[in-house]
């Protein structure tokens, strides 16, 4: 499915600085947003995801799902139960077998009965990707998805993106890792 995100006169005012982005159109199936720290990669993704207020105009007709780099995990809950519970909050929840498939793909099946807090940083990074992919969306906005992933995790993630028919907008500062699978690279 072809997607198109048009961004015009984008600006976001923070306390000490302003993020200004020139007009851009994102229309690759896999688009990388690359830039230095503070260039506005995460800000742009959050704005597209409708999470923050901004100046300018963003046109996107497709359903998007935003994945943040960090989030807190609850205590005293098994990994599978957490994903099941999170999935149930969705307007169009996926089947339990879809959770199992994703856990299996990211080699976390043997951890599904473990307390989510006991997982390593890399495993939690995989859980973060899984929870996002569980949501039905046309475009996935992934903020630094490689953060915390080991080599095996990076490869699994790259292969998933390659095989997937969904659209991805990925912000990263490790563009070397993902450049080969992207359809376009946007430098901020």
């Amino acid at each position, binding site marked *: 499915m072809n997607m198109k995100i048009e961004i015009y006169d984008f600006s976001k005012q923070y306390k000490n600085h302003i993020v200004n982005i020139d007009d851009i159109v994102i229309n690759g199936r896999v688009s990388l947003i690359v830039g230095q720290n503070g260039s506005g990669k995460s800000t742009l993704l959050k704005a597209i995801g409708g999470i923050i207020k901004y100046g300018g105009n963003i046109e996107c007709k497709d359903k998007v799902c935003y994945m943040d780099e960090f989030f807190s995990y609850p205590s005293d*809950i098994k990994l599978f139960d*957490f994903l099941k519970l999170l999935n149930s*909050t969705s307007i169009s929840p996926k089947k339990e077998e879809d959770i199992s498939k994703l856990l299996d793909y990211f080699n976390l099946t043997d951890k599904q009965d473990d307390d989510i807090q006991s997982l390593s940083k890399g495993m939690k990074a995989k859980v973060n990707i899984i929870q996002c992919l569980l*949501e039905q969306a046309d475009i996935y906005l992934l903020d630094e998805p490689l953060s915390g992933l080991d080599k095996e995790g990076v490869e699994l993630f790259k292969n998933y993106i390659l095989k997937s028919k969904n659209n991805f907008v990925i912000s990263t500062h490790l563009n070397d890792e993902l450049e080969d699978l992207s359809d376009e690279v946007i430098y901020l």
Partner: protein
Amino acid sequence: MRSLILLHFQYLFSWKVFYITSLILLLATICFLYFSNFYLDYDLLLFNKQYYSEEYYFESISLIKIIVVLFNMFIVINSFILNKYDLLLISRRSKKEVIISKTLSLLIINNGFSIILYLLFLVTGMFLTPYMNISKLDLSLLGDILIFGSIYQMIYILVYVANKTIYALILVIVGYFISDIVTDSFIVKENVTSFSKILNVVFVNVNYYTNEGYSMLFGKTVGITVFILLFFCVVLIYFNRDITN
């Protein structure tokens, strides 16, 4: 909405939280036991029924109010500051649904906790003293305590959502203590000073008035109205603010 509330509960409840809450309830019960004077001679308690009853009520209600105010701060910190997960839900549901479900979850916990605390106060008095009996089951007072707790919870959420800093929550505690010190008990309601009245619009208090017994200065209707207004302010501010992890 049910699934959202269940997820909020999952973030709010852990065994650690359960143990600490149980410990708070245990400490409160020990205080109620002490306030009840049950260790004094039974005949003495019976003879000075009115005095001991008033004393038990005054000390226990003061304690319940402080515990409810602090417990609310604790759960708001747990929900908004220690556990940052709103972005997980905003990708799935609207901001309005997220904040409404979160607030409802906190209200359920706060009201459940307040009811248990109030029951412990009643049971302690009923079983151990001659001056409390089942006819003293004051549901109106319980209603006042629930509205009192709910308003403070809304103020905490509002202050945090508007300022995004944990230190802002201290304002609410200071507000409560000023209101508690300034608002006199054991006087006729009409004699309350203008300063107390202004404070009691937001920093509500449950006090003993000689003409009405324990009640809020402006009554339940005003209390519920203030609560609803604060609730709408919370939703409005949350909706218009950036959500960050």
